[in-house]
């Protein structure tokens, strides 16, 4: 079901602490952050919550872990089903309302952003709308709204940390947050909204509607990240396979034309990551030279695709990410570092297979890489341009 988060206070999510007194939020909400917020909500309302309780999950000790305790007061707890289902529900990334992820193959005119986009896969890298038809273009990334590049509004919030023993301001502990405060701001009327949308699967609207107010992200104890949760649509759209095949064929023809390929036996199609993906490339500390073709083979292996396809081109941004696991027992809350493929990355495949076979296979995939239950590794077909 489609879910809307209507924020009533700014939020800080996934921000990297650049210096000890300053954190900047990212402009989207990964599924694991929503899951953590749900877990916190359940624990705060649990009759049997014990902050010191340690449970062992898959051989690892965890604290603040949500599991159905099946104790006397559990049977009449309003959060019973949510508690039971939390481990099984699937949560997507949440993005600002009406926005979409820009595919990394899109380029924009350097002279005039209103000239629209050029897709490197199916068009030559020049702006045809500029005088002479040879205007220079540059790659763009981020989010798109109404066909234009989009940014959320961020606000600086300065706070003083509180000394928990004296209840007064902690000495020398002024800290600043760069929080997401609005997704829409009208300068003239002063109207503001901060609305994010995504999907949660495995819960019914009734089960979710029990939550009156969720607190998402960091610094929730000082009022950040408060939001109302509303279900927008219970049913999910199922794509029309024949239409998808038609679009894939059109892309194949355009791609071949643009790249001067005259091989009817081969078909080309592309996917776009609509969320970040945690891929295991199999090397953590080896700095060995590889040719571009060898890297393509590494990509195919990391994606774990078990189909007769080859990686033709990669348009990806990969960064190293090391998150926190606050359920870990002990001082060290850091996770192991992973390769994170940035949302918007595009991969072009080459295959001899018919597109219906491709659709069958790719349709069966939940996503690529690790943590797909939390929305990581989600993808769509990329048909070129803004689609």
């Amino acid at each position, binding site marked *: 079901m489609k879910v809307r988060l209507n924020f009533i206070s700014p939020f800080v999510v996934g921000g*990297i*602490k*650049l*210096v000890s*007194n*300053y954190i*900047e939020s990212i402009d989207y909400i990964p599924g694991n952050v929503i899951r953590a917020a749900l877990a916190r909500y359940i624990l705060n309302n649990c009759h049997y919550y014990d902050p010191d309780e340690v449970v062992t999950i898959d051989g690892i000790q965890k604290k603040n872990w949500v599991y159905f305790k099946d104790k006397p007061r559990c049977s009449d707890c309003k959060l019973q089903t949510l508690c039971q289902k939390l481990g099984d529900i699937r949560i997507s990334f949440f993005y600002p309302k009406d926005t979409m992820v820009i595919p*990394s193959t899109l380029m924009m005119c*350097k*002279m*005039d*952003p209103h000239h629209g986009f050029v897709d490197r896969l199916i068009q030559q890298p020049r702006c045809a709308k500029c005088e002479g038809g040879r205007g*220079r273009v540059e790659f763009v990334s981020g989010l798109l709204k109404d066909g234009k590049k989009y*940014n959320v*509004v*961020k*606000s*600086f*919030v*300065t706070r003083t940390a509180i000394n928990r023993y004296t209840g007064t301001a902690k000495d020398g502990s002024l800290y*600043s947050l*760069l929080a997401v*405060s*609005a997704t829409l*701001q009208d*300068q*003239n009327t002063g109207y503001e909204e901060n609305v994010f949308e995504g999907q949660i699967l495995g819960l019914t609207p009734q089960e979710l509607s029990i939550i009156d107010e969720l607190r998402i992200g960091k610094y929730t104890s000082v009022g950040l990240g408060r939001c109302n949760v509303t279900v927008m649509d219970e049913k999910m759209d199922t794509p029309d396979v024949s239409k998808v095949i038609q679009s894939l064929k059109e892309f194949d023809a355009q791609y071949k034309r643009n790249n001067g390929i005259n091989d009817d036996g081969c078909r080309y199609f592309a996917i776009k990551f609509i969320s970040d993906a945690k891929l295991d*490339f199999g*090397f*953590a*500390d*080896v*700095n060995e*030279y590889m040719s*571009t073709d060898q*890297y*393509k083979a*590494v*990509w195919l292996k990391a994606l774990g695709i078990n189909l007769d396809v080859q990686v033709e*081109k*990669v*348009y*990806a941004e*990969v960064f*190293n*990410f*090391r998150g926190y696991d606050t359920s870990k027992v002990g001082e*060290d809350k*850091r996770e192991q*570092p*992973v*390769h994170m493929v940035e949302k918007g990355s595009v991969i072009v495949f080459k295959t001899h297979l018919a597109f219906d076979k491709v659709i069958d296979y790719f349709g069966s995939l939940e996503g690529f890489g690790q943590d797909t239950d939390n929305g990581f590794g989600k993808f769509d077909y990329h048909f070129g341009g803004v689609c």
Partner: protein
Amino acid sequence: MSQGLINILSPKPISFSEFKKLKEEFKGKIKDADSGIKALLEDYWDVPYYFSDDQDGGCWSSVRDAAHLYVLLNYLLYGRPGMPFDTTKFYRQFFEDSHDNIKEFIVNIAAQKPAKLERDVQVDLVLGSIYKIKKYFLENNRIKDIRGASTIIKYMNEELTRQFLSQRYIEECALYCGGGNVLMLLPGGQGSEACRQLEECFAKVSLTAKVAFEFISCTINELFNDYSQKMRALHERIEERKKTKVYPINPDSDLEEIVIDGKKIDFTCVERINSRGEVCRLCSVRDAKYIVITPEGRMAACPSCMRKNMVGKDKAIFYEEYQRVIGRSPKWDVASISDLKDSHGHVAVIYADGNNMGNVVMNIRNPLQNMYFSRKVDYTTKRCVYSAIHKVMRDHARFEAIALGGDDVFIIVPGDVSLEIVNEIIEGFDRSFNYELTMSAGICIAKHNTPLQSMFQVAQAKLKSAKALARESGVKYGTVDVEVIESNISVDLSTSRWALFPTDSLKLSKFINVIKRMKDTKGINRSQLYKFRHAARELKPYEFQLFYAYQTARLSQDYSTFVAEIFGVDPRRFSGLIENPNAHKGKPFVSPWEDIVMLWDCVGGGEDSVS
């Protein structure tokens, strides 16, 4: 090619008699020089070379570039990789008056005529690029680590590349190396191995800097007669590699030391950590393997951060360069960002680059133009930055340069001199290229404890809007946009909250000048400016205009005179607000007081001046 482009891509012409005199002088210098000819040639990088007194065309190569190319072509035709090659002999031969077909070839190339070598050979054109440099610099907020990263990049780009070439080929194979890019011409069949070795070499030193090398094969005649197309193909290959390449998370190498500019930096003396699983406190991502000593105490660090830290302790390349250009050293040795703060605690990140550079590059037709242009831009940018800092801060110069190469400027200066410095840089750059090329800059002014990464992001966004003004308005001058970060403000980087910014350097000059005069005028009171700003925010336009008329009648008409001068309106008609030229998009008036109040402290002068 237009005359404007010719002026950018080739040295300023001199008379033939003057050239002959210079040539004789140079021949005298190299008579007894053995291997130092190349260094001597560096002084002649901006002097045109004439092969004859009736040489055609308005586009000449420089003495340095023509001589380099002559030696390189001889090497490609007659030399062999790994074998000794007497470059001195060919330098001398170049300056002899005799003609040969390679000189003829260079003459035709310089004059943009069809050129052909009788004996053509296969060559490999190799392009290397260190990309995402700013991410490598800005993994933490420590100035010495950033400085170390910057030094390592420069070392790899220049020293390491030259070492690589001199050990295997000749140094002249480098058409250019600097500003994060390396372009070299190697004997045929060498490209693949050179790319591999260079990538390995760079990775071994920096560990985490992103590097890609690619090559294309062709003949000399093909390359020189279809240079733009070949470069386009090469750029496409390297772009593909950059987008596909994946880097290890915890890279390490057995490198024990590096020697930068003659100074040895030893990594073996750094204490190692025995335990596993500790996270590097400098980048917060990679696994720590060492302990480095910082002002905050002992810190666990990964191999990459340890190297940056060690190099940054010993080397400050841009201070040395400043001293060479200006003739005196900056007075302050900057140990942390807070050493750069002004009396209000503000620092400014300035991020600037040239406008329309890509267009010029697209018009480059041969390697000679490429060699000259890249050097000219690099030299001009550095000279303008150092001169601007010296002109504004004189003997109190304190700054930190994070990236300064090519047309890229990324520096940190005290907040109260930032506008003046930017203005001087832009004016200097625009003048040097006779306004055929201009520079735009984004400035982010904030408290000294704001992380550099965030300030850089803001400056980057402001540079974008400054560039948009340069493109859309077609102004002849460079442009500037600025953002001041305060506590508890909303930051919407896509729109400007200023009445004046983004603006061009001419208007900025006027703004600085007027603010300085306002600060020196007794009738102007800073608290009144705050009052006007507040009133303009709270009152309706007509209410504010009444309030303003009353206040200025009571206090002084100087307010109107100065503000009208900044915005170029008639002071008699100025009623406290400026008419919005884009009124159809929003409000009919904009408040000038936001700009004046916010930037009051960002312009030196008056009683608040910081020295």
